[in-house]
């Protein structure tokens, strides 16, 4: 990826460009105008009298709009520029660019203004995997008032239509204007780029898929309302307020409206690769932000329920009751070259679906939704017991059935080498990872509460509680690594432990599957020198064979992971350890202007002094955006309790005073106040 890119987005439509506003995509550069997982503009280069322009500055004003200030000529002599060029652009429905040229000279000028425009219609997967070989036909149609760039493969048709508010000369490679600007005169053109999804007969097929707003004004009002509806956070530490604000805006930007549920939004996973719905990412993000934006949980649950698996499909790895992993709308999904229509290869989304429903009810009191989703919850529980137990010993396992394009690892650590034994070798399949057993345990405990309180089925509740207790007992027996004093990362089908020390043990605390007497040792590991870097908990502990400080799932630090680890620690009463992690991650956020990346390096804090961003990290990413919010909840000890909001703050001294105002829930709106009193010991290596 080039050094600096400017990104604006609205739902599933986004533009990634250089700092000049130009787009010059190559097969691997993810710049362009994207919509529905397809690149609708791969070239968008502005020249004046044949010369490229240089950026003086740019502002990304809002997530959906940006402004670029440019001058002609190379960087060395632009101080003399007699021309200024301003490009203002916004996405929302379509992509619009307002081009303003100002002549500062006392003489008039003749200008040839040209925009080179082209589209390669690459599927996002082709860009991501660097494999662009289009099977269909790319066409260009020049009309007197528009340029039409198109792609056709069978009935699959995508078109980019470019028009201008002032007459332009359109040609095969773009469009141009010839201008005569008098002294101090200014010229403005509005360029509109529409992305069309056409069916037979040229009808737009978008089937109601749209972003949460369309027009700029609507987007502006929507963002204002989104911020006004969320709780206010005031803090003596200014960066915390900045981080909170950044997170709220990014969450607004990442909202995505799939075509299956008119108008309702769920969090998409992240820019640029993951602007779509993901079971796991959407659910975990909702859990993180529940105290702040609870409405996201409701729509996420409804959408995922509406697409819950109903049949066996080996290509999509669909089973009855399974919650989806990922949905895509591009060419590779359409022609079944990729399985995302949708793809179900996730082993944790299904138990997490139940966990979110219960947590959402505890905050919102929305009993209607719990009753409405009873059938889906029962189907999810059945999936856990019947279809996920691939070894037949009561655990949740995964082994892909789609051996061409399916995922090897169907847990959150989904890279190919994320699961290993201590000697670094990889286990055979099926595999069972520890955190998923925790989620399944938690799902049963929580479903028991739902069965008893809302489904009027106490017998089912008792059965679930028995099963959960049994699972906890066996798990503590079979997964405990004696010589390490922690739980194994995974089991192989012979029951052998993948006996490495990993961040996954923190999720076990969150799920409640850890035996009380073992919790202190787990807490000790999580803030100990092998796992804790000073910024956060590494995915894999130092000293393991596969440890690498920038190993994606083998040593890098994931803010989202840390937020659940901290929540788990707090649940078991380790408030100081939780605050230590919260403090480290929130400190790291400062170096990213409040926008935490997907992951950063596991180097010791003492060594680097600043968090080293993971090379190809995706940003903003939903569950990184949610992390500071969950850390706030954890430090303030916000917990729904018997219909009220309990507040039990344990803040480190450096946090000063924090207030969170207007926390929504079944209690209406309540405020929480806290002051930093915890004196944290120096931790990490």
């Amino acid at each position: 990826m080039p050094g600096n890119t400017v990104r604006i987005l609205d739902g599933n439509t986004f533009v990634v460009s250089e700092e000049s506003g130009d787009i010059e995509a190559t097969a691997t550069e993810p710049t362009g105008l994207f919509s529905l997982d397809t690149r609708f503009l791969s070239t968008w280069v502005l020249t004046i009298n044949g010369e490229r322009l240089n950026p003086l500055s740019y502002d990304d004003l809002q997530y959906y709009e940006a402004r670029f200030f440019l001058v002609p000529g190379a960087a060395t002599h632009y101080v003399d520029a007699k021309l200024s060029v301003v490009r203002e652009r916004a996405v929302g429905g379509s992509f619009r660019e307002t081009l303003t040229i100002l002549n500062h000279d006392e003489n008039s000028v003749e200008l040839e203004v040209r925009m080179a425009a082209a589209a390669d219609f690459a599927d996002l997967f082709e860009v991501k995997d660097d494999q662009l070989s289009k099977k269909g036909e790319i066409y260009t149609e020049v009309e007197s008032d528009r340029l039409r760039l198109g792609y056709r493969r069978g009935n699959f048709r995508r078109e980019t239509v470019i028009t201008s508010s002032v007459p332009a000369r359109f040609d095969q490679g773009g469009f141009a204007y010839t201008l005569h600007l008098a002294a101090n005169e200014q010229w403005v053109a509005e360029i509109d780029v529409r992305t069309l999804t056409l069916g037979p007969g040229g009808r737009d097929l978008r089937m109601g898929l749209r972003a949460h707003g369309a027009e700029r004004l609507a987007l502006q009002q929507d963002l204002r309302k989104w911020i006004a509806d969320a709780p206010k956070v005031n803090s003596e530490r200014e960066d915390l307020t900045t981080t909170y604000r950044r997170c709220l805006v990014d969450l607004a930007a990442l909202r995505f409206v799939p075509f299956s549920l008119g108008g309702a939004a769920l969090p998409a996973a992240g820019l640029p690769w993951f602007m779509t719905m993901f079971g796991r990412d959407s659910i975990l993000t909702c859990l993180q932000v529940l105290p702040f934006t609870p409405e996201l949980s409701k729509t996420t649950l409804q959408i995922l329920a509406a697409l819950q698996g109903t049949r066996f499909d080996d290509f999509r790895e669909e089973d009855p009751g399974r919650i989806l992993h990922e949905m895509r709308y591009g060419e590779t999904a359409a022609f079944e070259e990729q399985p995302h229509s949708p793809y179900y290869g996730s082993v944790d989304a299904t138990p997490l679906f139940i966990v979110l429903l219960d947590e959402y009810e505890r905050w919102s009191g929305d009993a209607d939704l719990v009753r409405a989703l009873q059938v889906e919850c029962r189907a999810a529980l059945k999936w856990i017991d019947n279809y996920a137990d691939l070894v037949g010993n009561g655990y949740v396992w995964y082994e892909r059935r789609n051996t061409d394009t399916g995922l090897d690892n169907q847990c959150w650590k989904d890279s190919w080498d994320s699961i290993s034994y201590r000697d670094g070798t990889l286990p055979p399949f099926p595999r069972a990872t520890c955190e998923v057993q925790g989620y399944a345990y938690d799902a049963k405990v929580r479903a028991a509460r739902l069965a008893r309180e809302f489904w009027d089925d106490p017998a089912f509740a008792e059965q679930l509680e028995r099963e959960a207790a049994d699972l906890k007992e066996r798990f503590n027996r079979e997964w405990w690594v004696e010589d390490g004093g922690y739980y194994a990362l995974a089991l192989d089908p012979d029951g052998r432990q993948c006996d490495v020390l990993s961040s996954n043990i923190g999720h076990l605390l969150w799920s409640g599957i850890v035996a009380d007497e073992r919790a202190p040792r787990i807490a000790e590991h999580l803030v100990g020198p092998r796992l804790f870097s000073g910024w956060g908990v590494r995915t894999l502990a130092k000293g393991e064979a596969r440890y690498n400080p920038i190993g994606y799932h083998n040593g890098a630090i994931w803010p989202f992971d840390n937020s659940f680890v901290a929540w788990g620690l707090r649940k078991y009463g380790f408030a100081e350890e939780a605050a230590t992690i919260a403090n480290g991650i929130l400190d790291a956020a400062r170096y990213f202007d409040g926008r935490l990346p997907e992951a950063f390096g596991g180097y010791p804090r003492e060594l680097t002094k600043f968090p080293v961003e993971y090379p190809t990290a995706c940003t903003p990413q939903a569950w990184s955006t949610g992390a500071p919010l969950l850390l706030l909840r954890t430090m303030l000890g916000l917990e729904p309790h018997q219909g009220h909001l309990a507040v039990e703050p344990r803040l480190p001294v450096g946090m000063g005073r924090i207030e969170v105002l207007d926390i929504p829930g079944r209690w209406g709106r309540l405020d929480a106040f806290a002051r930093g009193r915890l004196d944290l010991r120096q931790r990490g290596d």
Partner: protein
Amino acid sequence: MSEATTAFFKELDRRGYEPLLMRTTGTVRFDLHEGAHTTHWLVRIDRGQLRVSREDLEADATIGLSPALFEELAAGREHGIAASLRGDLTVSGDPRLFVQVERLFPGDPRSRGPRRAFEREVR
């Protein structure tokens, strides 16, 4: 030939109630186009209660496709969502109804489903 198509709608009508659609109400019309000729199938859904007829009445969602493609969908050999992304199947009206009804099509008959590592298959 439209054996799977006829069997699919007959079975739907016979089923009478489908719990997957218990929160769904609306009408869906399938228009099977072959040249100038169009065959209509109308599915009325009332909180999971199903009624199928051959009427050509206005519906909340209209799904247009070829009889050959429908035959494949009804047999589980083609996938409705993928077909709609390709443009081989068009939806007008309320897309939610299409997504809900699509779940009633059978899975691919070649799919084996999850299998136990050491035993027989799970399903």
